[in-house]
């Protein structure tokens, strides 16, 4: 199946291009670029649509962590099945609630707050305006009368002030940008500026498409992004750089041994040689993530979706985007030693 190379007699004077096992990536560069460009464009359109949507008004649908408010999650104690319950029943109950006053603030209006009934009616999630701790307790106690009893340890209440969300967003963005700059500096020192630029470009590509995916999910399914999404994006960024660096390292390593060949050939050889590793590594990273996706708790579902997608895009950009752009940006162009009809290249002397 694989053509055997000439026995490794390194003394032969004429260099031999190592056999290409799978494919020559630079031959398919236009498809790769178009694919990525279209994906980026779709992502940008999704974010623009989100922004223009009056109900969202931001590139992504912000969750409680960023908008502020109170989220109450209740587990009903049922034995063995919960009496059926509908969203409108819960909403009706909400309208009749009497809340204690908080010093110096008017009692928030709970009418029209989004309500979700999950897991065949056994758990309820409420999204309310910002409540004080006392008011939150009052909501739970009064709902327990009509919808309860609730499981004693199954309640969760989150109240987040809007200032905290803004602070979280700002500090996440700053730390991301600083780490990008530091990574670019490191790659510039270890490789050169073009490599650093392309590594960051590939990273931006992965983060952009993952963000775009969630913009569309927000538009179509109402999926919100929370602070775990920010963590997922950071993870994707780290993974993307690692993936790209492996290919770049291979290109640098074989620079001297393949000096006689055009640069695009060197890229082809490097991508081809690292392809098995790229695929295996993505696979091994994705396995635990898929585990969480299918069997983990609901709290981590969208987090693992973001990571799975981002790692997929990261593998793609390290194969199809960063290496194929390398000859273009390093000013060496796409000259191939072999004819374009794809005959197996064996030598070039």
């Amino acid at each position, binding site marked *: 199946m*694989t053509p*055997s*190379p000439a026995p490794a007699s390194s003394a032969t004077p004429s260099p031999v291009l190592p056999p290409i096992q799978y494919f020559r990536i630079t031959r398919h560069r236009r498809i790769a670029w178009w694919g990525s460009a279209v994906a980026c464009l779709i992502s940008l359109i999704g974010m623009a649509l989100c922004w223009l949507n009056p109900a969202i008004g931001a590139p992504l649908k912000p969750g409680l962590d960023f908008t502020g408010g109170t989220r109450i999650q209740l*587990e009903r104690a049922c034995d063995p099945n919960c009496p059926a319950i509908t969203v409108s029943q819960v909403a009706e109950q909400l309208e009749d609630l009497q809340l204690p006053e908080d010093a110096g603030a008017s009692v928030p209006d709970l009418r029209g707050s989004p309500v979700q009934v999950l897991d065949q009616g056994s758990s309820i999630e409420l999204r309310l305006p910002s409540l*004080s*701790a*006392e008011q*939150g*307790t009052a909501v739970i106690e009064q709902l327990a009368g009509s919808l309860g009893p609730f499981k*004693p*340890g*199954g*309640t*969760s*209440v989150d*109240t*987040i*002030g809007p200032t*905290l969300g803004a*602070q*979280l967003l700002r*500090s996440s963005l*700053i*730390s991301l940008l*600083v*780490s990008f700059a530091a990574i670019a500096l*490191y*790659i510039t020192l*270890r490789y050169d500026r073009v490599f650093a630029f392309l590594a960051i470009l590939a990273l931006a590509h992965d983060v952009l498409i993952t963000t775009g995916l969630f913009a569309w999910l927000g538009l179509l399914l109402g999926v919100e992004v929370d602070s*775990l999404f*920010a*963590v997922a994006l*950071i*993870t994707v960024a*780290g*993974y993307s*750089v*690692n993936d790209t*660096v*492996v290919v770049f*390292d291979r290109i640098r*390593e074989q620079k001297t041994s393949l000096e006689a060949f055009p640069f695009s050939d060197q890229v082809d050889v490097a991508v081809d040689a690292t392809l*098995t*590793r790229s695929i*295996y*590594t993505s696979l*091994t*990273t994705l*396995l*635990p*993530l*898929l*585990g*969480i996706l*299918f*069997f*983990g*708790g609901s*709290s*981590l579902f969208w987090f693992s979706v973001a990571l799975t997608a981002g790692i997929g895009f990261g593998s793609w950009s390290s194969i199809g985007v960063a290496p194929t752009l390398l000859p273009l940006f390093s000013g060496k162009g796409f000259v191939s030693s072999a004819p374009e009809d794809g005959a197996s290249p064996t030598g070039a002397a």
Partner: protein
Amino acid sequence: MARQQGLFALILALAIAAGAVLFSFPLQLGLDLRGGSQLTLQVLPAGAIKTVKREQLEAVKEVLDRRVNGLGVAESTLQTIGDDQLVLQLPGEQDPSRAAKVFGTTALLEFRAQKPGTEGEMQGLLRLKRQAQSVLELSRRRASADANQSAAPGQPPAPAPSFPAEDLAKALGDLGVTVPAGAGETEQIEALLDEVNKRVVALYEPATLTGKDLVTAGRQQQQTGSGWDVTLNFNRQGGEGFARLTQSIAGSNRLLGIVLDGRSISEASVSQEFAAAGITGGAASITGNFSAEEARDLEVQLRGGSLPLPVKIIEVRTVGPLLGAENIRTSLVAALAGLALVAVFMVVVYRLPGAVAVVALSLYALFNLATYALIPVTLTLPGIAGFILSIGMAVDANVLIFERVKEELRSGNTLIRSIDGGFSLAFTSILDGHVTGLISCIALFALGTGLVKGFAVTLGIGLLLSLFTALSCTRVLLRLMMSYPNLRRPTYFLPSRQLPSPAA
């Protein structure tokens, strides 16, 4: 081969040590995993203070710490974040409204004169208070000395203050305090101290001077002797009030009480020489032969009391213990199932070295958890995400190495040379990948907020350990295997059809 065996013994010893660490120091779980309440507080500027600074934050924290301790929630922690925020964690607490009430009012610092004719009673109470405080202090210091095991050797122990059981029982009985049956000595003394405090405060006149007239508090070393004094500076109005207050009790046996949030934090006498006009000029010092630490405590409390900065609760998160337990269980099971598949994959694809990598990666997970327990790192959901990603990176390191070994074998190298070549060729890309990862971790840890920090910590630890296990554990184990001739077969590494020529 003796070297490999020695290294193998070292790895084995490390694994046993890691197991022992995990056994004796349990992992600390964050509130999102074990349930509890977390409140984030913003300290707001008020009055003359336009922006809250570190120093003022410490002072507010000192005041709030006392109130939080009064809630009696075990293991509650109050930490400062940045320049103007505090985070209160209440593990196991389901109802944060009780804690929220504590932050409703600002600190109240009062200067009060003792009521006439109560000198005898006051002396008795203060004697009890000193005794109780010094016993508590001693047991606290003993506990921390036990933990550090750094008590100065050879030094004869100072005559220890003690509270004989019958004296304690009598004191409690005299004051009418009932303690729950089975309460330890410390709890009894604390109950006694509470009651004594209440009674001491009851012996004071109503306050005529409050903390809002106190400008600053400081501390200075005594000119003679090694003790410390605490200094007070009042504004003009406060200076006049303080002069009147001190004049009224100067020379008598009545004391000047400093009360913070209804708790008497200091009792001072005013000497005869101030009987004419009181302590004037708006500045005073409390001379109590304080140690540097005691002086600092009093100073911070006074400063906290002089700064009635309001706090606002900006975030409350409550997770029920059931939800927490469910979160950790499902996530753990899912991640473990995924990792089991990774192990199967490694063995199928890489054969013998794949099996070695599985052992090395198990050791890696063990070292990781032991490090979390040792530092200690509080595990949260983002922290677990960081752990899983670091496992991905550790597997990647092994994949990189074994792919290189395969390549070397395919190009006709001998087995041992291929293994060595694989490790050294893969080294630079492993290093670069890990270093870039560590760079992001440092940036995220330095600049990120709580959630992101937890992620950066576990990922950073994971990356450092992965460098060690991939490059040493896997290698040592593999080399050790290769010392057995019947394991030294290229087909244990690669399907025979991929080998260039019939292997020897």
